């Protein structure tokens, strides 16, 4: 089969696709020809698939929650069993996963063939991240356009996997947020009342329905009474509900518990940097405590244990901020990067009335500064070396 796909063969235009499938099915048996003669068994496919495994709890819970919120809105929750709710939600979420992977991988395959390189695994993670950060009601064609935009303009033109400046999945969301804001925020997008693959139908909602997420409620709160969050039918929302994730929101980000399971998995296997995750939470909690102390309005008084369960803060901290390519790469830099993300996310969230969710913008902003932070850390190492040099390094070209 291989000669048909190699140069000169009949299907040589699909060479990258063939190699991609072969590399997907088998560990490549090429032997090393320079440098070390033995290699560690870790490779980027294993790393990426482990990140996907870490996202599975959030995905599964997101599917269940989609169904749960739907039946809570249209009524009939009490009669539904676990599998009905989960099945309904899974069928609602699946089209997004399919579109995201289909569009993204299609573009990646084409780029790899054009560059005559192997298909790289970076999109395996991005493809699952994109659906998890979208509200359930977004039209599929918008997801396709946004994914295509992101993969081409944020990843491929810079060189592909390993060369992107910004987090690719987050740029998809940012594109949708700025291009189609009505479908990405507000109170009507977080719960779907439509049919899912033909099951159920567009039912009228129950009385007292409000699709506002806790973030939305906090952002629109007035007066000085302490905030009491409610779920979509007006019943009170406890902290436990917010932590487990039975609240409206983007598909994968509602359950802090599922994100926590993913975080423990990623840190235990050493794939994500625990420094970034810890720093983001530390920065965020620090900012919240500062706001609690100042307490000019009721939003600033929300205690930190509720704030970190609201919105996409936890999900962003664990899965978005830790993207190794767009984050800081020095160990010291990761602390600064993480803390600034946490602080900025809270500032945007609490102080800025235009953006209820600050995490996306905070991470994208810090992606710009990540390499600047690295620059100064590296400069510190360089200065240490210069101090003990006998012949100074001449800047600007001439050197003996």
């Amino acid at each position, binding site marked *: 089969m291989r000669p048909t796909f190699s140069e000169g063969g009949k299907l040589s235009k699909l060479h990258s696709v063939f190699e991609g499938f072969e590399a997907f099915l088998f560990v490549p048996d090429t032997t090393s020809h320079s*440098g070390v003669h033995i290699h560690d068994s870790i490779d980027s496919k294993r790393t990426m698939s482990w990140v996907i495994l870490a996202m599975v709890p959030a995905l599964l819970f997101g599917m269940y929650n989609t169904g749960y919120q739907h039946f809570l809105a249209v009524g009939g929750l009490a009669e539904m069993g676990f599998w009905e709710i989960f099945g309904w939600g899974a069928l609602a979420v699946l089209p997004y996963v399919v579109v995201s992977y289909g569009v993204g991988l299609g573009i990646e395959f084409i780029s790899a063939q054009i560059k005559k390189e192997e298909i790289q695994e970076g999109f395996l993670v991005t493809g699952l991240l994109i659906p998890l950060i979208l509200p359930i009601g977004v039209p599929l064609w918008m997801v396709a356009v946004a994914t295509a935009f992101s993969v081409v303009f944020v990843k491929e033109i810079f060189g592909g996997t390993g060369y992107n400046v910004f987090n690719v999945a987050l740029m998809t969301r940012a594109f949708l947020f700025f291009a189609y804001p009505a479908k990405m925020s507000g109170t009507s997008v977080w719960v779907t009342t439509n049919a899912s693959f033909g099951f159920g139908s567009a039912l009228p909602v129950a009385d007292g329905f409000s699709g506002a997420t806790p973030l939305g409620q906090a952002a629109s709160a007035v007066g000085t009474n302490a905030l009491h969050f409610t779920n979509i039918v007006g019943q009170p929302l406890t902290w436990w509900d917010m932590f487990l994730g039975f609240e409206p929101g983007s598909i994968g980000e509602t359950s802090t518990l599922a994100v926590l399971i993913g975080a423990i998995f990623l840190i235990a296997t050493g794939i994500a940097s625990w420094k970034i995750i810890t720093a983001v939470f530390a920065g965020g909690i620090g900012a919240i405590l500062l706001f609690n102390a100042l307490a000019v309005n009721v939003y600033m008084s929300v205690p930190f244990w509720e704030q970190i369960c609201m919105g996409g803060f936890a999900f962003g901290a664990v899965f978005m901020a830790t993207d190794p390519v767009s984050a800081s790469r020095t160990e010291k830099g990761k602390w600064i990067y993480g803390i600034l993300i946490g602080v900025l996310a809270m500032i945007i969230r609490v102080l800025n009335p235009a953006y209820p969710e600050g995490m996306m913008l905070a991470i994208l902003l810090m992606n710009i500064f990540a390499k600047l932070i690295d620059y100064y850390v590296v400069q510190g190492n360089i200065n240490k070396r210069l101090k003990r040099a006998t012949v100074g390094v001449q800047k600007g070209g001439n050197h003996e």
Partner: protein
Amino acid sequence: MKNTFKITKGLYIPMTGTSAKEVVSAGESEQWSVNPNDYHGVVPRLLVQVGDLVKAGSPVFCDKNKPEVLFATPVSGVVADIVRGEKRKLLNILIKADAQNEYVPFPVRDPLALSPDQVKETLLNSGLWTLLKQRPYDCIADPSKKPRDIFVSGFDSSPLAPDYDFILKDQSTDFQKGLDALTRLTEGKVYLGLSVKTQAPELNQAARVEICRFDGPHPTGLVGVQINQIKPVNKGEVVYTANALDVAAIGRFFNTGKVDLTRLVAVTGPMVRKPHYVRCKPGMSIQSILKGNVHTEAHVRYICGNVLTGVQTGSDGFLNPQAHQITVLKEGEGIHELFGWALPRLNIFSFSRTYFTKLVQRFQPGKKYEPDTRLLGGERALIMSGEYEKVFPMDILPEHLTRACISGNIERQEELGIYEVAPEDFALCEYICTSKVPVQQVVREALDKLKAENGD
């Protein structure tokens, strides 16, 4: 000054095939080789022709750019063949050995009684100068530069490395004489790096040198790591580096007046039937050293040196002069693991925590592995951050230096410490790299380019 260094970064790779502590003599080698390509960066100028009679220690070629650096033959005999390749590039010089080895008679002298220039001249004329390397550039030491210090590594921490305690047993006079010769070459100190586990009195009681102890996994045995801990190299400084086993050969020369490069070579690796030490000389054919001691059912790879920094040789190849070890392992091509990257793979060794290596090692301490030469992944751009730093115990940022080498940014390389490193320091980084970047090759090319740019 601190004399004991504890190093936590690094990785000990357990492999099957450690040499048993028994010594066998090598067989007869029909042809011997003196190969200019064994020395990186040397453009050879031939000093002999086919049919010339040579004795052990007589010069066979010299470095065209530094004609005082002579390369000698380890054996006496007649020059049988001069192998040339494309554009008359010198590929090999083959010598047919005499039945009885004869040595060029050099005077027996005590290096402590000689002036530094005399010691240098003696070493250059005998071809033993080529055993000394230098930082920067990790090439043969430049005789025109005065070294700030000289660093000798007294142990090897690489996978399946030979045991220096065992090899240097009863060679204390030779080893000490070699160290004395080195002390004459510098106005600074001679540092001897030893492991906290080194037992041999030959090493522990070396005189007139500064002994520094190292405790930690590989790459603590690498001289570059030791230099960075003891007294790093700055821009503009030159240090010489040497291997303790070669220092003993230098001492033997001063004690006997003969260029006798007999050494104990550890024959190691998963594909060796009975791993042991073989008494032989560099330049002998691999087969005369192995003597059929290899499982040949599968396609094997012969490496002069260890699996991280060694040089691949054909089965008809020769032992290169820098090697004190031969490793033989399976090639592994043709092994197709279905979905291998997703499976637990309990029987492979990995530094990554996505495999269960540490867990298995807790239940089976002392378990050894049989790696083969597969890449086990495709080459990618650098994705994971903080990987290299985990196995690079020097005060240098390895990933950023690698990036500067890949992009050819010479000023950045200088700023980040390219003058302190050799490709072997990055061998572990290359081993654990998720993206399979050929780091050693990248650093080697950068060093060569820098050397040419600087005109050194």
